[in-house]
């Protein structure tokens, strides 16, 4: 338990450091936002204010890979319904961009006094509870099987390619000149932060959804301590730096539409339980050789591109009509994925 608390504290502290060094407010780490920025940097969407190849994402995957290799835990596997994992990644991104943050940023926002994140947390918990009901009703997770070792290096090679593109800045890579995408900690600091947090998250299995899920499902609050650690460290950091302001309004990169903050994070909660982990955890699993997790990450990137191409993402003004429809459709699709087996009669638990 001590390890997971320490990891949480370090992640929270590193997040505050990254914000102090230039990352957008309450966005020391945000897996959804950073993948969205990467999608923009690659030109997969045209929202000029959110385009940057975030080195934190590169570091998280490579840090997890290095530690997994060192500990004999780099095991290349996949095949547990990969298309479904892609869809779950896609939907988690739609939900996260309706709320404006992944579960990790939700905790960081909470630690800065953003009460909209509290509404998001309620939605996240509600989503996790729905996910648990799906698991108990006989949701078939599928089984992964060993895959050729080389397959496991596809994701790290992609990350190294992104790093090369970030450093060499070829013409086709886009960099925001204003907005959140233009705000970033120095590359080497952000990369190092990603490597450290990636390794720590690999070692401790840190998962923002796992703690709440396991507490309700198997009465095991172990992972919840990571969640608490991040909150405490970020809260202390924000108080020291005078970044704490308890309110709904005037919060950075946030909106005050309670229903859509709630439902957006509910989408992420259900998706995270059905996918076996939150967005952060998917990045770590990808680094460990889990190719289904890689497809979840690619699904998140695709979801971000769609969200910004079709006006599904929220802004500080709130969530528009397109985004509202997308959140409702996401909930329906998640219902079909989570409970579809009940439509066909008997449930099958094992593959």
């Amino acid at each position: 338990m001590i390890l997971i608390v320490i990891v949480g504290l370090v992640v929270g502290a590193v997040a505050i450091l990254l914000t102090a060094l230039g990352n957008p407010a309450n966005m020391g780490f945000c897996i959804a936002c950073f993948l969205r920025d990467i999608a923009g940097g690659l030109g997969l969407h045209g929202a000029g204010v959110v385009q940057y190849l975030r080195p934190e994402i590169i570091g998280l995957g490579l840090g997890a890979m290095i530690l997994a290799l060192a500990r004999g835990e780099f095991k290349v596997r996949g095949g547990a319904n990969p298309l479904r994992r892609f869809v779950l990644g896609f939907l988690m991104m739609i939900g996260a961009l309706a709320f404006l943050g992944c579960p990790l940023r939700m905790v960081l926002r909470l630690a800065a006094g953003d009460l909209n994140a509290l509404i998001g947390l309620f939605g996240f918990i509600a989503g996790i509870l729905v996910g648990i009901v799906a698991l108990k009703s006989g949701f078939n997770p599928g089984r992964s099987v060993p895959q050729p070792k080389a397959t496991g290096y596809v994701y790290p090679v992609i990350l190294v390619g992104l790093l090369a593109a970030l450093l060499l800045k070829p013409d086709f890579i886009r960099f925001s000149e204003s907005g959140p995408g233009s705000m970033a900690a120095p590359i080497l600091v952000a990369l190092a932060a990603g490597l450290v947090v990636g390794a720590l998250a690999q070692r401790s299995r840190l998962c923002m959804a796992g703690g709440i899920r396991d507490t309700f499902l198997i009465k095991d609050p172990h992972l919840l301590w990571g969640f608490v650690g991040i909150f405490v460290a970020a809260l202390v950091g924000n108080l020291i730096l005078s970044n704490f302001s308890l309110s709904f309004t005037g919060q950075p990169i946030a909106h005050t539409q309670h229903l859509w903050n709630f439902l957006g994070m509910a989408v992420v909660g259900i998706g995270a339980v059905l996918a076996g982990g939150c967005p952060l955890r998917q990045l770590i699993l990808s680094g460990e050789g889990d190719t289904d997790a890689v497809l979840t990450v690619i699904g998140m990137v695709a979801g971000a591109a769609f969200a910004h191409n079709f006006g599904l993402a929220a802004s500080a003004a709130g969530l528009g009509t397109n985004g509202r429809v997308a959140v409702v459709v996401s909930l329906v699709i998640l219902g079909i994925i989570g409970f579809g087996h009940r439509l066909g009669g008997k449930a099958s638990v094992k593959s």
Partner: protein
Amino acid sequence: MYKLDVIGLGCPHPCIEVKKEIDAGHLPLQVSVSVGAPRENVTRMAKSSGLNVCEKPGTEEGVYILELTKA
């Protein structure tokens, strides 16, 4: 000895399957589990349920055999 194979299952399914067996009184139980989070999670859950856990490497790479017995 009861046997259960949870190799290749993602979180939290290994724990769910093992818990079902424990609750059904199927002890001692031999669980085949993947390295990484499943191995740690099943071990932690079994110990918190008051069981002894004896671990040995499986025949396949990346697989461990956990023997859960009453304390």
